[in-house]
C-alpha cells in the first residue's frame, strides 16, 4: 500500500500519538491525507467538501485516539472515521449514499447477454464474438486519455460501487480491509467490486473499440 512502508509499526504509532508526539502525527498526516481525499471525493459532491471531510476526520482521530482498541489496523480505523464523516457530509448535501443493495445489483448480468449465444444458437452461453484484444500498454500512445476515460467511468458508477472500487483498486486495500472500513459483509463487498470492475472494463472497451475504428479509418485514406 502506498506510503505504508515508511511508517513505524501500528503499536509504535499509536503509542506516540497518545503521547502527543507531533512528529508521529505529521507522519500519518502526510502519508494518508492524499488517499483519504481520493476516497472522500468518491463519496461527497465537490473537491472542496472532500478536503473538509479529510480535515474533520483527522480532528475526530485526534480526539478519539484514546479510544482506538487495535482491533483493526490504525489506518483502517482512520479510514472508517473518514468514510463515516464523508457519509454524514454527503447526507447534509442532500446526496444519499445508499448502502443497502440496489434492486438487480446482486444477480443481473454484468456483461450484455446479447454477446453470448442464446438457447437456439450453436453454442448457448458462449461468446458470439470474442472481446477484441486491446493494444498493450506499451503500444498505447495515449495513456493519459485512457486514465481520463477511467476517471469518467468512476464518476458514473453508482455511489457504493465507486467507493468500493476506489478503496480496492485505486488505494489497494484488501477485500477484508474494505469490508471493515465500510462495515459491509464480504459478500456485499465482492458484489459491488465485481459490478464496478465490469462497468469500468466496459467503458475502456468502448474507448479502445472506438479508437481502433478511427485508426483503421485513417489508414484506409490514401
Amino acid at each position, binding site marked *: 500500500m502506498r506510503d505504508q512502508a515508511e511508517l513505524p509499526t501500528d503499536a509504535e504509532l499509536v503509542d506516540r500519538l497518545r503521547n502527543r508526539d507531533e512528529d508521529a502525527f505529521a507522519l500519518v498526516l502526510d502519508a494518508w491525507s492524499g488517499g483519504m481525499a481520493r476516497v472522500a471525493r468518491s463519496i461527497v459532491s465537490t473537491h472542496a467538501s472532500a478536503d473538509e471531510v479529510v480535515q474533520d476526520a483527522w480532528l475526530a482521530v*485526534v480526539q478519539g485516539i484514546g479510544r482506538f482498541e487495535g482491533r483493526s489496523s490504525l489506518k483502517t480505523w482512520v479510514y472508517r472515521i473518514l468514510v463515516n464523516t464523508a457519509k454524514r457530509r454527503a447526507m447534509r448535501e442532500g446526496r444519499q449514499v445508499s448502502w443497502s443493495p440496489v434492486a438487480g445489483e446482486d444477480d443481473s448480468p454484468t456483461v450484455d447477454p446479447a454477446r453470448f449465444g442464446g438457447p437456439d444458437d450453436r453454442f448457448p452461453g458462449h461468446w458470439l464474438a470474442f472481446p477484441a484484444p486491446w493494444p498493450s500498454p506499451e503500444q498505447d500512445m495515449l495513456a493519459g486519455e485512457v486514465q481520463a476515460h477511467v476517471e469518467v467511468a468512476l464518476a458514473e458508477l453508482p455511489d457504493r460501487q465507486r467507493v468500493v472500487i476506489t478503496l480496492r483498486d485505486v488505494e489497494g486495500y484488501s477485500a477484508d480491509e474494505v469490508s471493515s472500513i465500510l462495515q459491509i459483509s464480504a459478500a456485499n463487498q465482492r458484489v459491488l467490486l465485481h459490478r464496478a470492475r465490469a462497468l469500468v472494463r466496459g467503458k475502456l472497451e468502448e474507448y479502445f473499440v472506438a479508437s481502433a475504428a478511427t485508426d483503421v479509418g485513417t489508414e484506409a485514406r490514401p
Partner: protein
Amino acid sequence: MTDLNCDQLVELVTDYLDGALDEETERRVADHLVGCDGCTTYVQQIRRTITTLGSAPPADVELSDEARDALLAAFREPPR
C-alpha cells in the same frame, strides 16, 4: 461436473482473482480458460482495468499548508 459457459465465467472473475472460489469451481474456471480465448481475453482486460485504476496519477489531493498547520495545532492542544 458440468462445463462452465462463458456467460457464467464472466460473473466469477472477481471471486477467481480474489481466490475466493471453492476448489471445485476454481478448477472449472481454470479449465475453461485453458480452452477459451474469449474468456482469457476478458480476464486479461479485467486485470488491465485493475492495474489502470491502480496507476492513476496522484491527483492534486495534498493537504494545504494551512490545513496541515491547523491540524498540527489541534493535535498539540486537542479540544476537550
